[in-house]
């Protein structure tokens, strides 16, 4: 059988070339979800493959590659299959419409018109989106804790819109979003894919900035969308017999090595690296396309004719820049992977070494995000029972979420103890209905303030355990709650839900008494020099910087303390004040003599502070009863908010 006229014979050099370009393309695609394939069509055309066959064969290698990448990244928990498929289906419509526009322009203005249209699309779209992504990557690179991403204002608005009958829950957003928003985004992704062969340059930023998916999940989910689009495209071209299966499979051989490596790379990097690679590639690609625009303008006689040698030279330079774009992306991925693996090996070696036995001379900044809960402002869990005791917590949680761009999870627990259940189901139902109505009211308040909000009604016997479970389930960064004060024997017998929650919570707990308001007037940071207090210091710095609030650091000495302990308290305060000032926070220190809880509360009153920040030693059960807890005693005494910072 003879090879059809559309298909060129291949030699060893061609195969090697395709394997290498395929590998680099796959590496970039595995990392940013797309963007690795745009160079393959011109690369194949440079070998003499007809344009349409190059496009068809490129698509035929893309869909299995995207499938392998999506499965790999799904193992790392980064893929939202539902969102990928929903976007993919509307993207198919976009592809068909985009191709129709292309054909129309080609019919009216010929090759030059079509090329000009594609180049202008590259320059305008990549110019706007690429430079924004690059700017955002630079901005988040400099933040203290960029593992934690803020949900963009636009995404918060999109998530707050409720259109009945169109709402779908997406796990990557941890929110319900109307498909009326996802449809046009998918359509635009498809249109771009049909125009410049890389829909992901719209798909990934759309998922991240418009819908609110984390950058890692957006880039992983794009692989599902690319699979759906690629499968449809392959069927379409294959129906016309245009796929060169040899070219597609050779590129696939290289790209599957690349996509696996790119996917592994995402587990070592911070989210801004995804944006950085995408931004760099987009900007370089637009430069590559901008270089050839004069050629097409000249061919359409819109500008003076270029010198005979110039069009060829510009096209060559453009192709070199295109290759450079891909190579730059691959270099960043390689370097991130190398540094990530080296760091992990060093950490593993360090973990095996014996720990230092002396106190640190500087404030220890926690490495884990969970250790500095106020480094991240993404998810707040508010516990409310609808009573006056939790009103302050709800009010301040909404204020804080609005300022920080956080999502609210509001939980109300109807105690399912024997007492209530013995009174029968009607009473329980009434309790549940009342709690549900309260949750709806709070949700409406939150949404009116433009905050993405979810409510959870729980029926359980153990209130603090339900709050802790919910904090773990929602990966809350902060639990916000009020408190019902119980004192003396009642505390010992019954315990206190807030204190028990503090004891067991996986994250920090902000306790807000009903009359307290967090206006950022003054903070008091209490420290005993322990690593728990250091974590509190880091949280206080983050919060003080955010609110531009002065801080008074306090370390209390007791009459029974030795001279050595007193000196230590002074050095603790000196160290904390230096740390706070170094971070740009206005800070003072005090070393009062007396009972720690009394002194902390007194200083808070004297300074008219609206927040006391403390570390928690995490004592629970018998240990708490026997040793007591300064945190608990401060909570009992003060009328201002208290942030208890937890360390693991």
């Amino acid at each position, binding site marked *: 059988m003879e090879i059809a006229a559309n298909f060129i014979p291949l030699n060893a050099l061609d195969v090697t070339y395709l394997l290498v370009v395929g590998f680099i393309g796959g590496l970039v695609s595995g990392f940013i979800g797309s963007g690795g394939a745009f160079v393959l069509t011109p690369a194949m055309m440079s070998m003499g493959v007809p344009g349409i066959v190059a496009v068809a064969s490129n698509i*035929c290698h893309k869909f299995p590659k995207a*499938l392998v990448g999506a499965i790999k990244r799904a193992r790392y928990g980064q893929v939202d299959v539902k969102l990928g498929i929903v976007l993919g289906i509307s993207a198919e419509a976009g592809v068909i419409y985009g191709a129709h526009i292309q054909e129309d322009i080609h019919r009216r203005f010929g090759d030059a018109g079509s090329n000009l249209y594609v180049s202008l699309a590259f320059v305008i779209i990549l110019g706007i989106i690429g430079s924004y992504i690059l700017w955002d990557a630079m901005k988040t690179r400099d933040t203290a804790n960029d593992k934690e991403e803020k949900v963009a204002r636009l995404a918060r608005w999109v998530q707050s819109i409720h259109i009945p009958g169109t709402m779908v829950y997406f796990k990557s957003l941890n929110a319900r979003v109307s498909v009326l928003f996802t449809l046009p985004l998918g359509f635009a992704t498809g249109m771009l894919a049909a125009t410049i062969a890389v829909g992901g340059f719209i798909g990934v930023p759309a998922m991240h900035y418009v819908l609110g998916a984390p950058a890692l999940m957006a880039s992983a989910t794009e692989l599902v969308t690319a699979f759906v689009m690629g499968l449809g495209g392959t069927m379409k071209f*294959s129906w016309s017999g245009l796929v060169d*299966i040899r070219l597609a499979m050779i590129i696939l051989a290289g790209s599957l090595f690349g996509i696996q490596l790119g996917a592994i790379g995402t587990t070592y990097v911070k989210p801004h690296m995804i944006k950085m690679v995408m931004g760099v590639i987009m900007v370089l690609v637009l430069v590559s396309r901008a270089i050839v625009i004069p050629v097409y303008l000249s061919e359409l006689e819109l500008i003076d004719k270029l010198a005979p040698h110039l069009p060829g030279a510009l096209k060559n330079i453009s192709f070199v820049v295109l290759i450079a774009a891909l190579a730059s992306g691959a270099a960043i991925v390689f370097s991130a992977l190398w540094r990530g693996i080296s760091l992990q090996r060093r950490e593993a070696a360090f973990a095996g070494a014996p720990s230092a036995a002396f106190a640190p001379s500087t404030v220890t900044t926690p490495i884990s995000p969970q250790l500095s809960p106020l480094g991240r402002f993404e998810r707040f869990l508010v516990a409310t029972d609808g009573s006056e005791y939790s009103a302050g917590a709800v009010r301040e949680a909404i204020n804080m979420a609005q300022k920080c761009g956080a999502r609210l999870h509001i939980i109300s627990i109807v105690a399912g103890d024997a007492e209530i259940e013995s009174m029968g189901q009607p009473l329980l139902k009434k309790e549940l209905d009342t709690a549900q109505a309260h949750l709806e009211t709070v949700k409406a308040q939150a949404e009116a303030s433009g905050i993405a909000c979810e409510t959870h009604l729980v029926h359980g016997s153990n209130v603090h355990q339900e709050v802790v479970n919910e904090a773990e389930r929602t990966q809350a960064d902060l639990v916000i709650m009020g408190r019902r004060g119980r004192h003396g024997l009642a505390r010992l017998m019954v315990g206190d839900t807030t204190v028990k929650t503090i004891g067991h919570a996986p994250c920090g707990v902000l306790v807000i008494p009903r009359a307290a308001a967090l206006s950022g007037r003054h903070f008091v940071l209490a420290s005993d020099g322990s690593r728990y207090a250091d974590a509190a210091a880091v949280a206080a710095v983050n919060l003080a910087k955010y609110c531009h609030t002065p801080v008074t650091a306090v370390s209390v000495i007791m009459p029974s303390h030795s001279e050595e302990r007193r000196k230590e308290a002074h050095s603790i305060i000196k160290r904390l004040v230096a740390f706070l000032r170094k971070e740009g926070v206005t800070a003072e220190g005090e070393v009062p003599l007396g009972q720690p809880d009394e002194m902390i509360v007194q200083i808070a009153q004297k300074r008219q502070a609206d927040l006391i920040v403390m570390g928690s030693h995490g004592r629970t059960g018998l240990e708490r009863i026997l040793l007591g807890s300064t945190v608990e005693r401060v909570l009992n005494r003060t009328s201002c908010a208290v942030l208890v910072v937890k360390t693991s």
Partner: protein
Amino acid sequence: MTDSTTTGAGKPLTRAVVYGLVSVALYFMLYLFEDSILAFTSRGRWYFIAPVVIALVFSYVHGAFTGHFWDILGIKARK
């Protein structure tokens, strides 16, 4: 297409070798029967299914091989 674990059938190295050999065999067959395969897959219309099936088979086998390949080189995802 899978990450290696010791709970599955065989060790990562064995599985990498097996998938690698099958992958090489598939590519060798593509080279050997190049003309026939190309003619069959480019007939168009309902034969469109042929490139799709070939792509899926290659991606399954070769994807599994490449996954194990990086694994046995010690390049694994961060836990």
